[in-house]
């Protein structure tokens, strides 16, 4: 018999990288920006975090370094889309390519090195896992209850109106993108510092793309992101756990399921919104559109 608690504990740590990245992307998308460069920012964080942790011997310094590096590389995307008004989809994809390349190039000297040990947190659960769980209510509060959060959502919902009200659309988006980069960086660093304890090229292996799916699944809410991260992490953990228990599972079909669930959620929410004409939480109105003051 499979112990549910043990599955849950596995789930907590398995979902942490995608939870961080998705929470960051949530804030970015809420500001009306679609950044497809999550994978590139995660791998940047994975490398920088590992490098700092290794150099200082302190894993927490590593996570800090990862946040800084993730934010720094996200500024490339911010410059392109906010200052140069380049297309967000193309810029994000380029960022992923660039980040993967940069990390692989600068990571050469760190190959084969082991990360410093990480002290266990309360109840034997990693501190960063706790941090991720705390970030969920914090971001929920920020987005729904705080004034800057309200401005950020306003910018994402209708940037022209926000601009007319005197808010700085670009500055808001810049800050959101940098925050998203920092969160993706921490998520990536969790893989290198806390999970694998080594640096290898391409180690994020597509986690950034899953984070993008989670944001959609979440219906752009912080609690939804947590649910999504647990769903996506949970399906992986559960299918592996079932395999370990000797159950024959159709792995490919099962791993498709969360993506199909995401589409269904998206359809249900969009449909409800369309037919009830009730303004509710859903995709931000200006998502993916660039803002130009003179338009």
């Amino acid at each position, binding site marked *: 018999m499979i112990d549910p608690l*043990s599955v849950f504990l596995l789930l907590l740590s398995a979902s942490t990288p995608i939870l961080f990245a998705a929470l960051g992307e949530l804030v970015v998308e809420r500001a009306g920006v679609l950044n497809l460069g999550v994978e590139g920012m995660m791998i940047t964080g994975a490398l920088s975090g590992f490098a700092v942790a290794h150099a200082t011997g302190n894993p927490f310094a590593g996570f800090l370094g990862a946040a800084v590096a993730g934010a720094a590389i996200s500024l490339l995307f911010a410059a392109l889309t906010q200052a140069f008004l380049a297309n967000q989809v193309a810029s994000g994809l380029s960022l992923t390519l660039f980040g993967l390349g940069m990390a692989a190039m600068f990571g050469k000297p760190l190959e084969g090195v082991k990360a410093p040990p990480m002290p266990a947190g309360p109840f034997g659960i990693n501190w960063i896992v706790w941090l991720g769980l705390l970030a969920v209510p914090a971001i929920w509060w920020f987005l729904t209850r705080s004034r800057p959060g309200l401005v950020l959502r306003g910018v994402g919902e209708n940037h022209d109106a926000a601009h007319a009200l005197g808010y700085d659309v670009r500055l808001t988006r810049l800050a959101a993108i940098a925050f998203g980069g920092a969160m993706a960086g921490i998520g990536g660093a969790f893989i290198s510092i806390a999970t*694998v*304890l080594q640096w*290898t090229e391409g180690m994020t*292996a597509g986690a950034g793309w899953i984070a993008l799916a989670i944001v959609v699944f979440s219906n752009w809410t912080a609690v939804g992101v947590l649910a999504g991260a647990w769903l996506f992490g949970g399906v992986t953990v559960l299918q592996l756990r079932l395999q370990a228990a000797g159950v024959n599972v159709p792995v490919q079909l099962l791993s498709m399921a969360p993506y199909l669930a995401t589409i269904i959620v998206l359809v249900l929410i969009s449909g409800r919104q369309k037919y009830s004409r009730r303004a509710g939480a859903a995709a931000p109105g200006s998502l993916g559109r660039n803002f130009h003051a003179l338009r």
Partner: protein
Amino acid sequence: MNRRTLLAGAAALSALIAAPAMAQDEPLKVGFIYVGPVGDGGWTYQHDLGRQAVEAEYGDRVETTFIESVPEGADAERALTQLALAGNKLIFATSFGFMDPTINVASKFPDVKFEHATGYKRADNVATYDARFYEGRAVIGTIAGRMTESNKIGYIGSFPIPEVIQGINSSFIHARKVNPDVEMKVVWAYSWFDPAKEADAASALLAEGVDVILQHTDSTAPLAKAQEAGAIGFGQASDMAAFAPSPRVASIIDNWAPYYVERVGEVLDGTWESKATWAGIGDGEVVIGDITEAVPAEVKAEAEALRDSIGSGEYHPFTGPLNKADGSVWLAEGETASDEDLQSMNFYVEGITAQIPQ
């Protein structure tokens, strides 16, 4: 492709490579294509060590080149052609997925020799080579069987292909030989390299009560998880010495250097022939990395004795009596498995309760 275009293409291509006339003492150019980056710390890394060994052995007489991170399929065919056009006379294609591209390119460059790792298609100028990883698995299976206290050992598989299934069977047979109560839990990661997934797979096995983890995937993530849980594991492909002495108590190292050195030497003295090589511990192609002090001395001695008897050819890891998982007889008393049987192995031996996914 019809025959005419193929022939015309071959003629044009060979005209191209003939153009820069070979001077007398020009070094032999040897090319390598890798499926991953050299820095993967596993499969590709080990092939590149083999390349470096060739350079070290022959110095100025050879010149090696590699192209890394080549996707399998169309890109591989181009990379191979580029290598051939660049004047490489011997080309190592180091991934199973390069099989058809290698055969295609080889037919256009009859005077270039190709070596394809882990495949089964050969031609006059295409040889294949592989390592008997299952021999190493027998040794670490023995250690695993002796070291487990929960009598449950876990195995992280990449893909359900014969090479991996051989490894599972071999390690299980030898674990059970020294510990009749041992059980094997298998998890398929469906990837050769995905640290996060491998970590999750290791965690799933640990939650199932496993205290020894064997892996046929390339990252160190399972070792990191084993360490957290106080379990042990083994280095895979490379030594993974960063995790010694525990959780990494030993390792199976793919050592391609002797084969590469030998084959390059044969091209240099003109004796190279197409053949299928399947070398193991005895040839130094599969190496058991240092067995650490975390393993009791008598277990270490037992493992090393097994290693030596496999290496000398005295003992074959698949020696009967052995039954298949469905209870039918596979090998009778004293009978050993044929290479053909092993190369298409798609069943577990008796005692493994899991099923191979289809």
